[in-house]
């Protein structure tokens, strides 16, 4: 039964105690399954059957479905549960993520990002150098954004439920680039700004989590803000999203000196209203 391949759509029913003691199945690649005895010790980090990257938790299709439903409900119930939004993105991104990865592969800069796997973290950012950059440059504006809104790129959750190591990086990159999206779009981190960025990201990435966030986010806004949103911001976000090239294909770490305006033009984002 376990060799039936990873595309089995039915919910797996595990036998209680399995030979290697693993009762969770997943549709991850079976390459890890064969040398289970020895290789499992090496790959196994803390919990999973065969975790493909640090923090990976293999899940069955049923578990993913339950997680998607549960995290969607919990994100609506308690918007401060950012971990639930992240989990929703991971469990529903099975179509959009490979799409994004392919877009990156077929673009020279995107391809380089996939190879080099840069991470945006406070420890890797040279804040002194960024602060010294002229106003209007990407680095300076990004730093200003982080300080004004009191956020840090380190609070992005690492992926847990993505069953492919490269796709896990893609979603991680998407999360870390989110703050840069705010900078490029000129949107603050209040509810209104977040919704606008979600609309942009929904068009750009096609991630169901962004689409849901864009659709349900406005529920908690006041009528006045809703009006501004509907008449000005969302149409602009949609136009920019459609016009812009894939934002994950920009190697931001090498473009700190570039002025925000010129980067906007290069990507194809229209000036914010």
């Amino acid at each position, binding site marked *: 039964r376990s060799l039936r391949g990873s595309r089995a759509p039915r919910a797996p029913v595990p036998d209680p105690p399995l030979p290697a*003691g693993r009762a969770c199945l997943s549709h991850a690649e079976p390459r890890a399954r064969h040398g289970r005895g020895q290789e499992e010790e090496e790959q196994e980090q803390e919990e999973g059957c065969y975790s493909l990257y640090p923090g990976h938790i293999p899940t069955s299709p049923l578990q993913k479905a339950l997680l998607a439903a549960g995290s969607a409900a919990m994100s609506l119930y308690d918007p401060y*549960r950012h971990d639930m939004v992240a989990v929703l993105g991971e469990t529903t991104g099975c179509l959009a993520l490979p799409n994004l990865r392919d877009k990156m592969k077929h673009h020279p800069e995107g391809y380089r990002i996939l190879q080099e796997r840069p991470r945006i973290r406070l420890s890797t950012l040279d804040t002194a150098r960024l602060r010294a950059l002229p106003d209007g440059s990407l680095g300076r504006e990004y730093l200003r954004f982080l300080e004004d809104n009191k956020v840090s790129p380190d609070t992005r959750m690492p992926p847990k439920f993505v069953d492919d190591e490269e796709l896990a990086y893609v979603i991680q990159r998407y999360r870390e680039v989110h703050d840069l999206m705010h900078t490029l779009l000129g949107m603050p981190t209040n509810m209104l700004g977040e919704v606008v960025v979600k609309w942009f990201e929904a068009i750009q990435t096609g991630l169901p989590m962004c689409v849901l966030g864009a659709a349900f986010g406005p529920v908690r806004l006041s009528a006045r803000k809703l009006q501004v949103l509907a008449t000005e911001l969302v149409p602009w976000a949609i136009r920019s999203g459609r016009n812009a090239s894939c934002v994950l294909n920009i190697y931001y770490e090498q473009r700190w000196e570039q002025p925000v305006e010129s980067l906007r033009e290069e990507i194809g984002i229209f000036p914010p209203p």
Partner: protein
Amino acid sequence: AAAGLCPCRVLLSRRGGALRVLRGSMQGLAAGPETHFGFQTVTEAERREKIYQVFESVAKKYDIMNDSMTLGIHRVWKDILMHKMNPSPGTLLLDVAGGTGDIAFRFLNYVRSVRERQLQLKLRRHQNLSWQEISESYQEDKFNSLGDSQVVVCDINKEMLKVGKQKAQHLGYSEGLSWVLGNAEELPFDDDKFDVYTIAFGIRNVTRIDLALQEAYRVLKPGGRFLCLEFSHVSNPLLSRLYDLYSFQVIPVLGEVIAGDWKSYQYLVESIRRFPPQEELKAMIEDAGFFKVDYQNLNSGIVAIHSGFKL
């Protein structure tokens, strides 16, 4: 080429594995023999540490998770345990691994209601007393609503005790209740002290169950009762499959969504599978010296109450 490389790699990793086992057993001599943590193999010291961390992280959401995982049925199980115990006022209870106080609060409620019933009956017999005498008897009984019953809640985990104390304050339990930090394998109490010893959903997390049972025997008075409420084994095959499906597919998801902690709940369902079944636990309790050891299955074996007496 791949075929040629494979055996080499297997050999190397096997040697690496052998070295690791050797190193493991060297460490084992220091850290204790191998045991299990869910489905993983770890040393005893590692297991204690990991379990401590699990409960440290779940403490605040422990009660909410219990309600959602068991759909509230855990309350019924604990009520049944209390009815089986049927404590009379004046009982001294030790609730081990009692963390958030569920058993302790039920005990206090139970003895209080038994005491009230006692007082009602006593008053009914005092029909021919004067008002003076009746009001005097009200006075003295008011300060004895528990009838000198006491419960000591003992837990190894500070976070769980903290949550328990907060709950007690919130629910208004103050008298007859004390909270002690202690290890079930080495209880900080004298011999022959308690009338009843309970451990509800805790013995599964003890690393040396035999030591815990010996300690239970030690601190109980002669005539004292040992009661253990724990997840056990389901023999009905259909129910067992459904139970496994629910445990492994739904519970970790609930843990992630409600508590933001998949791994602790994965550990929980694995630890249930690793725990000895009813008969084996019964034998272990008998080995510790208890007599008239028996068990009662609840929900076809999902949960079992084991009982024994120190004679």
